[in-house]
């Protein structure tokens, strides 16, 4: 008598309900009682498998599987460096190498004259690396876990989320290195603007997740996606963000003269990277290393409000994108098991 009574009114959508079995616990078999685990009378969740499940319901499913998400992230990290001698250190060595190269090329060879350039660079890279590794891992994640997708039922979005999650863990490690670097170089962040950091991290994660979910699904049908991501995200997109150069010093003037600042800021990662730099690098004005008496502006003279506005705009756009990505994912996910 439980199933055939969908509550009248707006709750008519019967997809996810929780109900308690009304049946009195009366089990005839003594074994069940010995075990103490009679399944009658406990709370049961009703689930529907069909080709049209709403985004809201899938989000609920994902929330129910959060434990799995944690385990998958842990697995991803453990497995990645399982049989290597240096293990986790590798996750720091490759960004360290990138930083070393950029410092040598831009700081020493091209002489950009930015004081403590390594901190400006690392602030931006911190945000960028989360985005890059999240999106890159997520793109291949469904295809790489074909065995799982074909045989086990769980919300497939979890795999993409786990990719972002493991990128988040490495982000955390790199953040620790950032702290060490700041201490080592006696470079103080803008303590008063520290609250801006989460304001930037939330849209960063949202944007990364949205793109990750979308690309993970699309890559199943169009395997080119993986290579496309490598080229577009790994190579082109990186240079569109003010990471290895200073926005204020090297881009702002030229953009403004052509009226293209808006276009540059349309890149969702730009405001985020710049917020990171604002908080961690924190030097709006500093003396250039090339001309010790020339006070140069390295960060835009925006108020905190401008950063918040830009980041929130990114967050808004990301949420819309995320919804769109979930819709696409939902439509494609039904056939993952056949496509792989």
């Amino acid at each position, binding site marked *: 008598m439980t199933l055939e009574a969908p509550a009248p009114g707006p709750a008519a959508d019967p997809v996810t309900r929780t109900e308690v079995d009304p049946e009195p616990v009366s089990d005839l*078999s003594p074994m069940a009682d010995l075990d103490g685990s009679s399944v009658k009378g406990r709370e*049961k969740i009703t689930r529907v498998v*069909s*080709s049209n499940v709403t985004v809201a319901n899938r989000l609920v499913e994902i929330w129910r*599987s959060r434990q799995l998400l944690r*385990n998958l992230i842990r697995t991803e990290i453990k497995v990645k460096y399982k049989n290597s001698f240096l293990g986790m250190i590798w996750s720091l060595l490759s960004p360290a190498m990138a930083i070393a190269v950029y410092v040598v090329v831009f700081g020493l060879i091209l002489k950009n004259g930015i004081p403590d350039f390594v901190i400006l660079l690392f602030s931006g890279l911190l945000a960028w690396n989360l985005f890059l590794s999240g999106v890159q891992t997520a793109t291949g994640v469904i295809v790489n876990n074909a065995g799982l997708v074909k045989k086990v*039922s769980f919300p497939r979005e979890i795999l993409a989320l786990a990719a972002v999650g493991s990128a988040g863990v490495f982000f955390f490690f790199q953040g620790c290195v950032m702290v060490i670097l700041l201490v080592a170089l006696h470079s103080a962040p803008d303590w008063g603007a520290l609250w801006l950091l989460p304001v930037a991290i939330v849209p960063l994660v949202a944007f990364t997740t949205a793109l990750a979910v979308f690309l993970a699904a699309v890559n199943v049908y*169009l395997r080119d996606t993986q290579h496309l991501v490598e080229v577009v995200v790994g190579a082109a997109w990186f240079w569109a963000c003010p990471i290895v150069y200073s926005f204020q010093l090297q881009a702002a003037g030229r953009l403004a003269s052509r009226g293209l600042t808006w276009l540059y800021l349309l890149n969702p990662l730009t405001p985020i990277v710049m917020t990171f730099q604002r908080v961690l690098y924190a030097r709006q004005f500093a003396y250039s290393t090339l001309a010790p008496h020339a006070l140069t502006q390295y960060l835009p003279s925006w108020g905190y409000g401008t950063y918040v506005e830009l980041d929130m705009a990114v967050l808004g756009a990301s949420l819309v994108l995320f919804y769109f990505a979930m819709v696409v994912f939902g439509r494609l996910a039904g056939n993952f098991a056949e496509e792989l």
Partner: protein
Amino acid sequence: MGNVALDIQDISKRFRLYHEKYTSLKEKVIHAGRTPYDDLWALRNVSFEVKEGETVGVLGRNGSGKSTMLKCMCGVLQPTSGQVVVRGKLAGLLELGAGFQPDLSGRENIYLNGSLLGMSKSEVAKVFDDIVAFAELEHFIDNQVKFYSSGMYVRLGFGIAVNVDPDVLVIDEVLAVGDERFQRKCIERVQVFQREGRTIIFVTHSPDQVRAICDQAVVLSDGRVVGYGTPGEAVRIFRENLLEAGDVLSPGLRDEPPEAEQPIPVVGGAIGADSPPEDTRPVRLTEVTAIYAGSGDHPYMVTGDRLTLRLGFDAIAPVHGADFVIEVRDAAGNLLLRTDSGDLDLHLDLEPGPGAVDFSFDSFPFLDGVYDVAAGIESRSGGALIDWLDPAARLEVMNPGRATGTISLPVRVELVRGEGHR
């Protein structure tokens, strides 16, 4: 009573079989909009309900849609139309050890796999020892899974699955793995689940298992439900379905290739094997027919029915003291029964011309299966084999009851109390 645990509502599943699969961008662009494909309906309007606490077997030939249906139940595949409503936690065992991470230890994999099957960390911790004990991996639990033997792998997978504490357990042919002892253990576990009132759906190829475990069984053929009912009925439908498809050879195999018959008569040790056989044999077996209730209508008989095996012969010359022999063997070739007229002190004198000898059983005792009948004629004097037909006929036997094994014997069971049993 009778809550529906699993409601399969008119599900259909279409697979697109592309003649060539274009997955790269270039190919997609080149072949845009005209990728040739065939539609394959793996499931067509499948509907049935499984009540809470029921155990339902799924029977069907290869390619009948069993696995697709199970995948739809689990949510691995989405049905093209229709829906499956699952009430309660469902654990699907489509493949044992799916989702094992070879680089992680057994311990870590238990936690990972547990959460894949929807368990929380504390839930896994609670049953962790049971899983290890069930899988008999106490000494290897901290080794990486990639070093496990395939048996250990499967045991671990099953150990996790049966400890998931699901309301609905869906099992796809995985009971067939492992050694016999482990299989028995798995079946026992499934039976414990039944007593606990859980709902179980499982695919099997063994009618014996269906009979032994299931309350209901579904028979699928070409993506449609062709039978749903009690195990006995479902097994019968399944058998008929197999016979229709010609997967099992039809009974009364008189049209065996003739070569098979010719060399056999020599077996008797008769001298002069190089002379043409027809000349040396005064009598030949022509045909063995099985006669049972309804033998004209359907190609199987029911355990416990009356059976007559009619051995047709053709005598060329008068024969004195001929003994007729029959043998019944199971599918594996084990001899189950051998009887000859000589045992009954019945030595027959045959006149020239055709005739027949009947072997009648009031109640044929064998259970489900296919049985081969061989027949022969021996000469009483010297015991030489005159003719031998093997196989002479094939019997398809269907058991309407629940007993499993080979033979059905009437049995009485009573409880003996008190001093009586000492």
